[in-house]
């Protein structure tokens, strides 16, 4: 075994990869991180009603999944909410970040702290607060699709836009203010400066912020649970209700689809970000 063989070279202080305990720790960590996910995906192909023993390979549950109307409806709801949440959170986050970066005003520190509050508040509290809020203001229910999702969407925007704002704000820190002054000097109005110079620089932050908002919204359970009604079930809430009856390979299949979707979106966003980074590094 390569792992236990003595290497003829003496070990240097920075040869971390050659220390047994270090390798072991990394190995165990990776195992606990990924084994459940790999298991989940593997058992989505299990040919069995109950999800305990392997009974052979099948893709039946994927077919069943796509024929499960209420699950597909929940999936559609989740995607719709996530897309709206992404658009609004990125937009709000970008404006918030720009205001905090560009201007000095009274109570700025309080505003900045207050804005980040939804990040630190326990989700359960946010959920209860949202539920009470919508009940108190008498938010209309039973509206036609997609307006029946408005309460959940608003709740999602409320907790995901601070994440977007923080990511975009961090990106703005590296902006050379002379670029903005230069554009102004060349005849651009305040808005044209924002559109032509600031936004192109923000782009990687916008993509990262949008991605964060999308994934946060897509897999949120707690807050959604408190704000969803009987006809506005989202994907995670639906899976939870399915699991309460029994863990069938169908649940595994649904989760696999969700994982795949997140992976594709993340890979796409990372690609975009890399390209943009290469462009803006010249600044």
């Amino acid at each position, binding site marked *: 075994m390569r792992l236990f063989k003595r290497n003829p070279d003496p070990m240097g202080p920075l040869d971390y990869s050659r220390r047994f305990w270090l390798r072991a720790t990394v190995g165990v960590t990776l195992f606990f991180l990924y084994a459940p996910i790999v298991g989940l995906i593997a058992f989505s192909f299990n040919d069995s009603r109950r999800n305990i023993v392997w009974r052979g390979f099948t893709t039946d549950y994927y077919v069943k999944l796509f024929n499960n109307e209420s699950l597909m409806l929940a999936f559609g709801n989740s995607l719709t909410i996530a897309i709206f949440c992404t658009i609004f959170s990125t937009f709000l986050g970008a404006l918030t970040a720009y205001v905090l970066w560009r201007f000095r005003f009274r109570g700025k520190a309080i505003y900045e702290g207050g804005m980040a509050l939804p990040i630190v508040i326990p989700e359960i509290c946010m959920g209860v607060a949202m539920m009470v809020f919508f009940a108190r203001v008498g938010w209309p229910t039973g509206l036609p699709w997609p307006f029946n999702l408005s309460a959940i969407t608003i709740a999602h925007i409320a907790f995901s836009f601070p994440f977007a704002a923080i990511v975009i704000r961090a990106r703005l820190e590296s902006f*050379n203010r002379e670029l903005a*002054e230069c554009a102004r*000097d*060349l*005849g651009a*109005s305040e808005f044209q400066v924002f559109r*032509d110079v600031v936004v*192109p620089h923000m782009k990687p932050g916008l993509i990262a912020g949008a991605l964060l908002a999308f994934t946060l919204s897509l897999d949120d359970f707690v807050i959604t649970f408190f704000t969803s009604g009987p006809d506005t079930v989202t994907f995670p809430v639906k899976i939870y209700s399915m699991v309460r009856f029994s863990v069938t390979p169908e649940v595994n299949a649904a989760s696999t689809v969700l994982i795949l979707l997140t992976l594709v979106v993340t890979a796409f966003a990372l690609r975009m970000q890399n390209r943009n980074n290469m*462009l803006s590094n010249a600044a």
Partner: protein
Amino acid sequence: MADQTLSDTPIIQIKNVTKIFGGNVKAVDNVDLEVRRGEFFALLGPSGCGKTTLLRMLAGFEVPTHGSIIVDGQEMSNVPPNKRPINMVFQSYAVFPHMSVEQNVAYGLKMDRRPAKEIKERVAEALDLVKLGHLGKRMPDEMSGGQRQRVALARALVKRPKVLLLDEPLSALDAKLREAMQLELVRLQKTVGITFVIVTHDQSEALSMANRIAVMNTGTVQQVAPPTTLYEMPKNRFVADFIGKINMIDGEATDAGNGEVRVKTSTLGEIKLKSTATGKVALAVRPEKIFVDEKQPTDPSLVYVKGKVGEVAYFGSYSNVFFDIGTGTPLQADISNVSSDIEEFTFKTGEEYWVYWRKADTLVLGD
């Protein structure tokens, strides 16, 4: 004749301009300045002297606390930067990283809503002017620092401003490129005929490029003059000390009538010199105007004193020699190495010489 009067009217008038930051920091203190049409004007001073603040007020990024700025007869104090007939080359060049060279140069014209055909022609013309005609399609990250600066220059000049402002334009370039760029800027300024106002802390840069220089310190203008006047006839201690090397000997001056003063110093005795400064003054003389001799000079038009050789630095064409003349600070002289006889120009520590210079080369400087 009509042209003559036109070129005599100043393009920029800065009148009693003061800028106070945060309620109590006076960055610019009651500055009065005029920049003439078609001039290469330099604002020179140590860091924190207010020269950049003054430039930013010209560009419109800062609003004067008091006073007014008039450009080509128009009051500018409340005109935003995008509406001024002035463009600026920034210290970091500020080339837009997501636009190609052509797009960078075209940006200002697009903001002015010029027709596409005109933009194309003027961009090509501007790029040719800065010798980047063949690199229009490049992105900024594919260019060197010097090339990016040319992009910044073309981008500002393409708008045909009445005044071009340059904020420390050469500070980010290496020494060799800097010298080439100095010549290039002078050539460019002559070609386009636009008034250039440059901010710099490098005196040699200002002396070699500018027609006139304003020396600034602690927010005030100390002297405005052509480079030669600034060097040969500095108005006060600060200017004399900031520009080039100079020896100063403290003394007391009293009026002797006829535009002359009698200056009393501890080492040189009493000397009558042309000046009007009285009270505590400094006698100043540039190191290259000092000569040495073994015999005591007798010419009454000379100032002379006995000095003992201290440190000597050899620079090839001249030697920088420090003479101890009995004041606290040694007198430094740049002695030209006019002979190839090594013995003749070698100064040995401890040797005594008569050090002398012409009275006409002696400056009497007040504070």
